[in-house]
């Protein structure tokens, strides 16, 4: 008996992805760094490091620290700036056949607008993901991202300057993730991505100093997965637009958990560090699981969490 290859395609708004696995911004460089490891066109999409209007130097060293089953980072959004991305990187991503999405941030709403506008010149760019939630720079959008009103304003303004599909990346450092997701939806987002990192801290009891130059940093990795999954589930219940799930995904099983609670697609971040092949191994693992469980289409599985009736 021959097994039918399951259909892993998924839609994020009007973006059609060949499978639901994307790389997470800030953990995948500009995508090109992974080409020695595998053909990046095999991913649903590549999300590149957060881009700002001008090149950004980032925070002083003492940028990462390992924590139990996780890590804190305070990179401070070091990046080459949107101009070099458009000129030098984007053409090479296109040559590689990758579907790619640009993650952006600004110190002010005007900067967000400017970056979005410049990126709109790239015909092949699949979508713009607005980082409204970086905890590591004062200007990283968290000011906009931690209240429904702030997020609504930012989303509306960026929405107005670009025809590209607009994904809004949400902060988990909030009381009510559903309300935040709804704010993004009402302001015109085509999808929401969550979670960004959770603000955390580590200090050295002997030297009495913080481990990060920035004092606090963003927690990511397997440690946060249970929190991310709960928030994705809540967001899926709160909005009609697609939800992209992220946070601690390391294995096909982890990705399936997010799809099961309703995510349209997932992103894989910290897992790339330990295993550069993590993203493609997750694609293959999801396919194998579907073959084994006789599931023919992603849509027959997605959001099909079984709850006991009360």
């Amino acid at each position, binding site marked *: 008996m021959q097994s039918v290859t399951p259909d892993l395609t998924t839609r994020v708004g009007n973006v059609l992805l060949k499978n639901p696995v994307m790389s997470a911004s*800030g*953990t*995948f*460089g500009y995508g090109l*760094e*992974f080409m*020695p*490891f595998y053909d990046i066109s095999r991913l649903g999409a590549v999300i590149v*490091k957060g881009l700002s209007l001008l090149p950004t*130097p*980032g925070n*002083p*060293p003492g*940028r*990462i*620290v*390992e*924590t*139990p*089953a*996780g*890590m804190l*980072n305070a*990179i401070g959004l*070091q990046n080459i700036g949107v101009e070099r991305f458009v000129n030098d990187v984007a053409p090479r991503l296109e040559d590689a056949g990758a579907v790619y999405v640009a993650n952006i941030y600004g110190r002010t709403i005007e900067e967000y607008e400017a970056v979005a506008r410049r990126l709109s010149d790239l015909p092949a760019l699949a979508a713009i993901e607005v980082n409204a939630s970086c905890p590591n720079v004062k200007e990283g959008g968290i000011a906009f991202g931690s209240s429904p009103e702030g997020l609504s304003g930012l989303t509306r303004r960026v929405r107005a300057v670009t025809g590209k599909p607009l994904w809004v990346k949400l902060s988990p450092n909030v009381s009510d993730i559903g309300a935040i997701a709804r704010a993004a939806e009402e302001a015109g987002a085509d999808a929401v991505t969550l979670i960004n990192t959770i603000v955390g801290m580590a200090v050295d009891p002997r030297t009495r100093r913080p481990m990060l130059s920035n004092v606090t940093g963003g927690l990511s*990795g*397997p*440690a946060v997965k249970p929190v991310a999954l709960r928030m994705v589930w809540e967001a899926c219940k709160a909005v009609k637009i697609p939800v992209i799930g992220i946070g601690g995904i*390391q294995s096909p099983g982890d990705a399936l958990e997010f799809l099961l609670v309703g995510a349209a697609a997932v992103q894989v971040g*910290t897992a*790339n*560090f*330990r*295993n*550069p*092949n993590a993203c493609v191994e997750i694609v293959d693992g999801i396919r194998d699981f579907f073959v084994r469980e006789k599931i023919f289409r992603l849509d027959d599985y997605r959001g099909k969490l079984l709850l006991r009736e009360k």
Partner: protein
Amino acid sequence: MPHGNPRFVHGKILHNTGSGIFYRMEVAVPERIDFVPGQFAMVSGWPGNDPLLPRPLAIFRSGGVRGKAAVEFVYKVVGRGTALLSGLHAGDPIALTLPLGHGFEFPAGDRSWWLVGGGVGFSSVFPAAAALEEERADFEIFLGARTRDQLPPGEWIPGGAVAGRVHLCTDDGTAGFFGTVAAALRDRIDRRKSSGPSRVAILACGPHEMLKAIAEFALPLDIRVQVSLESSMACGFGVCWGCVTAIRDGEKSGYRRICKEGPVFDAREVVW
């Protein structure tokens, strides 16, 4: 030597044995790994997610052919990751991403190489010595350690512990030169004034303070110094921007990734 593309491979431990304070671990890998001395691997060989991140280790040796290829590492147990490594046995699986980073450079030209390893830093300068030995180049090795037992075994030294070519230094004077390896180097320079220090190039790996001391006295003497820096690393292949150091390079100054643009830097560019 050209810097090749990195790979992610699953290896199997051939042996992993302690010798004094150092462990030497040989790992069978699917294919031969060519590397430049100073390049490293990201190593993870434990189940579970705690510790989460792989650990950087210099590639100490690499050999064999497809089907029989192997790489070797030397490490010292300093924390949880290295303690876990030291508990692995022959036959255990281990994951490696390698070769990584920008290694030492060996520009052509007649010169004498001084290779300096502080602590376990010899793990990235011995490969450089082995390469120079192969080319019959002129080199000397300086090894620094706190005490005699913290020096690597003599038989690990490429070309052997040839008298006059290998200089041992200990902080407590239990072997060789009584003092830091930087002091020993300065000593050697003084004794060598005649032949002109400009024909010497230093390759160094070790504690930050040692590298800084070497740069401080050698750079003003116009000696070229390459240093291999360390940092906590998450990815090791340039995608997280976690491992940076400040680099001074005119227009292009800024934070550079130790795992990608380094770990070996020209000492003149490092902001000490």
